């Protein structure tokens, strides 16, 4: 009986020791925080055993409207490495925390990486910081930079990081070589994030309908897009599926018979490479939106004109009727 009890205690102690060792092993790994969800899978694919990756913003949420919570700040303070796209308001806050040494981790900001191509917004001329990593050369530089940072922080896993990075870059190379590029065509996009995707596909983005996230469109932008599509043979309209401008731009593409590409929202993705694979699949199936159907330059159907005119006539008639009765 005594012997059995001793054995039980010994097993319990052994189990406790093993669990403590596994926790210690896990603590030896890197704590990595990514700001945007579409960085998560890529960084996760680089990791060595024991490393953990946390995405502050979950897929489906727009990071441009995200605010850091107190628990987020705790997570950031625990991080060894923070990967940021460096443009959303909460990312600027993280930069401030790092600058003021309230956060000990190393901060990697995509736009600050040497050699990264930051495109100029076609209308404003300002640098476009939305979706920089969707340009494959930038993605490759990002992966190299993260890998180097991880090697410095955890040298014992350097070989693993090197091999994982190589695998990611090979996958990127395959995507890059198989993507169906429409050719050097003029393009109109609905959101700034698509400028980099379009540039990757070899398109020349001339207009972004919604200049910045949440900013209302202005009349000249729309009129200029309509003029561009009406005058250009072989243009492309590219939108984020479900965006507020999708229907409007799709109608324009149909009217002028230009190529229309609706891509999924990158913010719904967990990885940049996953998104680029999806883009490759979408553009491999693309075709002309519809037959062109010009209506004397007006962007409306005849049925709608008749409907609106009838409504106006009814309203005016009602006013005149009431007027005459008084």
């Amino acid at each position, binding site marked *: 009986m005594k012997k059995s009890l001793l054995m039980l205690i010994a097993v319990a102690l052994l189990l406790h020791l093993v669990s403590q060792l596994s926790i210690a092993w896990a603590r030896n790994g890197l704590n990595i925080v990514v700001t945007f969800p579409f960085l998560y899978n890529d960084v996760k694919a680089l990791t060595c055993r024991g490393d953990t990756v946390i995405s502050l913003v979950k897929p489906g949420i727009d990071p441009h409207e995200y605010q850091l919570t107190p628990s987020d700040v705790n997570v950031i303070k625990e991080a060894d490495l923070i990967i940021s796209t460096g443009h959303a308001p909460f990312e600027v806050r993280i930069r401030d925390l790092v600058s003021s040494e309230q956060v000990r981790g190393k901060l990697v900001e995509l736009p600050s990486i040497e050699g990264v191509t930051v495109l100029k917004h076609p209308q404003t001329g300002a640098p476009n910081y939305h979706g920089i990593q969707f340009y494959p050369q930038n993605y490759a530089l990002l992966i190299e930079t993260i890998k180097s940072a991880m090697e410095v922080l955890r040298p014992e896993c350097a070989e693993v990081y090197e091999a994982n990075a190589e695998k990611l870059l090979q996958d990127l190379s395959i995507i890059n070589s198989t993507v169906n590029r429409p050719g050097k065509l003029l393009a109109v996009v609905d959101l700034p994030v698509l400028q980099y995707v379009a540039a990757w596909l070899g398109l020349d983005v001339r207009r972004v309908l919604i200049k910045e996230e*949440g900013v209302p469109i202005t009349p000249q932008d*729309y009129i200029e897009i309509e003029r561009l599509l009406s005058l250009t043979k072989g243009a492309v309209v590219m939108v984020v599926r479900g965006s507020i401008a999708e229907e409007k731009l799709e109608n324009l593409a149909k009217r002028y018979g230009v190529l229309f590409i609706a891509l999924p*929202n990158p913010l719904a993705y967990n990885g940049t490479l996953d998104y680029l694979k999806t883009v490759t699949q979408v553009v491999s199936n693309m075709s002309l939106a519809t037959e062109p159907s010009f209506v004397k330059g007006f962007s409306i159907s005849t049925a709608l004109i008749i409907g*609106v005119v009838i409504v106006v006539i009814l309203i005016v008639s009602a*006013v005149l009727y009431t007027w005459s009765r008084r």
Partner: protein
Amino acid sequence: MLKNSVILVLFIIAFLTSLYAYLVVPFEWVAVFILMALLYGFLSPSIAARKLFFLAIETPHASLFAIALGILIYRALTLLNEFAWAVIIGVILVNIVGHFISAGVDPDVATSVFVSFTAAGSVLAIYYILSRYSIQYNMWAVVLGDPLLVTQRDIIILAGITLAVVVFCILLHDINVYVGADPDHVKLSLRMLWLYDTAFYTILTISSIALLKLVGFILEHILLSLPAIIASNMTSSSKNAMLVSVLSSINSSIIGLLIAVKLNIAPAASIGFIALVLYLASLVRRG
């Protein structure tokens, strides 16, 4: 009608600017701005006649809250759609506060409590939307307005709502004027006054919710109140006030649109400024 020089001038300006807008900008825009102007132009004098400016100014707050809450309810229940829930919630809220006022509660107190509730509720509901479903919903469009992205389906819906509002405002204009001028007398002589009140609060709420995405939360405050104030500065007749309100509403919308095209700015801003200019002009005329 044409004896009145103000109405004639406003009519000529409205006609010429609308014709010019028809020729130079996409027809969807002209259609949506004229329909919007008609809606607010007819609704505003009814609000003024009932002396319900405080409630009208509060309605966009209720609409913002109703839209935000409608999205959350729809996502939780996946029943009906976001707009239907927003209308249900908004109509209930505005009717509650409206009937409280009709029952004798001090309007300042009732609206203050109501604004506090809807403003705090909006912040909470919008926070949940932004932290859960933000890529599916553009809350900035609701606050700032985005009339240039109007679709053909939106125009048809707007035309239907405008028609309903115009018919309602014309048919009930006399009652609205009497309710504002001598509410006690109307209460004694009209048995179903609560029904007229409910209909008015309902139409006010539906108009506000439907147009929030087009004109935005901020501009809606101006468009619900200024046309009638301009009209009251320009004419003393209730008959002419409706017409002046409609014409000044059309002028501010179409001229605002044309200025927005010329200066390449958001039309919601230019419409607000033109409405303000018309108001100042009406003050000068009143002397």
